[in-house]
């Protein structure tokens, strides 16, 4: 046991060193390494020839051009995306990551560049296909009585069922906090694997962002699926999607915020959003 403690302590020291990335001075011409997951279409995904494409891939190019930064894009599995940022493997995360209080405890964010509610998707020939609530939208930041009743109704409708969700997402936190209990929550490495299991009938429903589902439902992979129930925003779902950056690089975060503001003002952002999502999921002023 003693040796084990020593070993763990040594490992902890190593981890401490790895995470202590020092703040750099950011400005025109700086090399900025950007990370994305590459498995969350249309935000970021890998095309048939293996290239990273999607909304955020177009957006980072636009933002880096505005800031005159020398940006490179790299791929990182979703699960380790924040620890690897902390360890200095790259400088910016642009991977459909919502700005939440919990994440803000460890990293900082640029202003949001997109916002999209979370919705449930089920099989359109399944028992949950007819599920609906009086409210179309639930704001989780401050829950009123009608919204409380809606959440209770969701819980009741999914009792005894299995809901799938991607690991380490705001959606997983929401399910664990508000819905779990009579509902089984299954977690997946990637959203794509979750979609396969939804189609195979291993999960009864899946929770993810509207901006993810909408384009999927128009494709073959989304055949036979439909959106049910209300859209959830705020609270555990955060304040939109932004670029995740180390806290000591607040300067870089401010630069990105400014560039995003410009892209909103001149209409670039909403043009990119409509092009990729089929609706305007871009953040507003």
């Amino acid at each position: 046991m003693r040796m084990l403690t020593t070993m763990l302590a040594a490992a902890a020291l190593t981890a401490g060193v790895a995470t202590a990335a020092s703040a750099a001075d950011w400005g025109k011409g700086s090399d900025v390494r950007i990370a994305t997951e590459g498995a969350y279409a249309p935000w970021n995904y890998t095309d048939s020839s293996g290239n990273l494409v999607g909304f955020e891939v177009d957006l980072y190019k636009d933002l880096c051009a505005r800031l005159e930064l020398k940006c490179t894009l790299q791929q990182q599995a979703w699960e380790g995306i924040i620890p690897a940022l902390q360890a200095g493997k790259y400088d910016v995360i642009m991977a459909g990551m919502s700005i939440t209080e919990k994440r803000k405890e460890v990293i900082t964010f640029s202003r949001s560049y997109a916002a999209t509610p979370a919705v449930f998707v089920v099989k359109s020939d399944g028992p949950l296909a007819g599920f609906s609530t009086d409210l179309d939208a639930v704001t989780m930041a401050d829950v009123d009585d009608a919204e409380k009743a809606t959440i209770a109704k969701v819980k009741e409708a999914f009792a005894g069922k299995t809901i799938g969700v991607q690991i380490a997402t705001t959606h997983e936190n929401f399910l664990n906090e508000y819905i779990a209990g009579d509902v089984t929550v299954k977690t997946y490495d990637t959203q794509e694997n979750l979609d396969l299991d939804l189609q195979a009938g291993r999960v009864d429903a899946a929770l993810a962002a509207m901006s993810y589902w909408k384009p999927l439902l128009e494709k073959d992979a989304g055949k036979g699926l439909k959106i049910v129930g209300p859209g959830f925003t705020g609270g555990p779902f955060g304040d939109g999607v932004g670029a995740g950056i180390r806290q000591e690089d607040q300067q870089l975060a401010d630069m990105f915020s400014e560039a995003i503001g410009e892209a909103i003002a001149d209409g670039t952002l909403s043009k990119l959003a409509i092009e990729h999502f089929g609706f305007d999921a871009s953040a507003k002023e």
Partner: protein
Amino acid sequence: MVTLFDEPANTWELIANGLPWTLTLAASSLALGFFLAVGLALLRLSPVPPLRWFAYGYVYLFRSTPLLVQIFLIYYGLGQFEAVQKSFLWPFLREAHWCAILALTLNTTAYTSEIIRGGLQSVPWGQVEAAKACGMGLGLRFRRVIFPQAIRQALPGYGNEIVLMIKSTSLASTITILDMTLIARKETSATFSIEPLFIAAAFYLAINFLATRLVMWVEFRLSPELREAKTGKTLPDQGVVGAR
């Protein structure tokens, strides 16, 4: 900041909740795999060529493809076919844990059969002939002479396989099974701390320590020559007996 070791007791308990799955997956696939492997090793040594080819092909297939790929193909791959979903196998293949046990069993069968084959082939032919000369039938010969010695020879290699399988169960976390690894991964992503992964690793270390001790003990039990040497007793002097 990435934090380490806050609320340790809590995280240890949380990850211990995944222990039953880890042990169930390892024990059931090792047990099933062992019996299948004995059969496969016998096919591999069979005088009938097609049986030999089948065993060789099976071992080649499962030993040469990554276990993770096998798990994905069985879980996500098979689940995509409507024919599979409508078949009598679906209640079985629908569940992630059966898919994991199936993949782990098929995999360990391939490796174990090779280990057992090596053990069977290590038994000196002279002993087999001697057993035949004593009038032992095929079954008796196998049970009394070949198999006990083959197992003893195969044990160190098989101990390796047990350790590998215990670690391989962590791959089941990729198909939604809440074993120690998935719980640790969930906790890591929830707390942005790598502590849960260290704790999970400590659990695997402990399990494998016990597993290797167990194999050593069995090896000791099955090897009288080791046992005698260790207790300081010597075997009766064969030369004296002969000289009488």
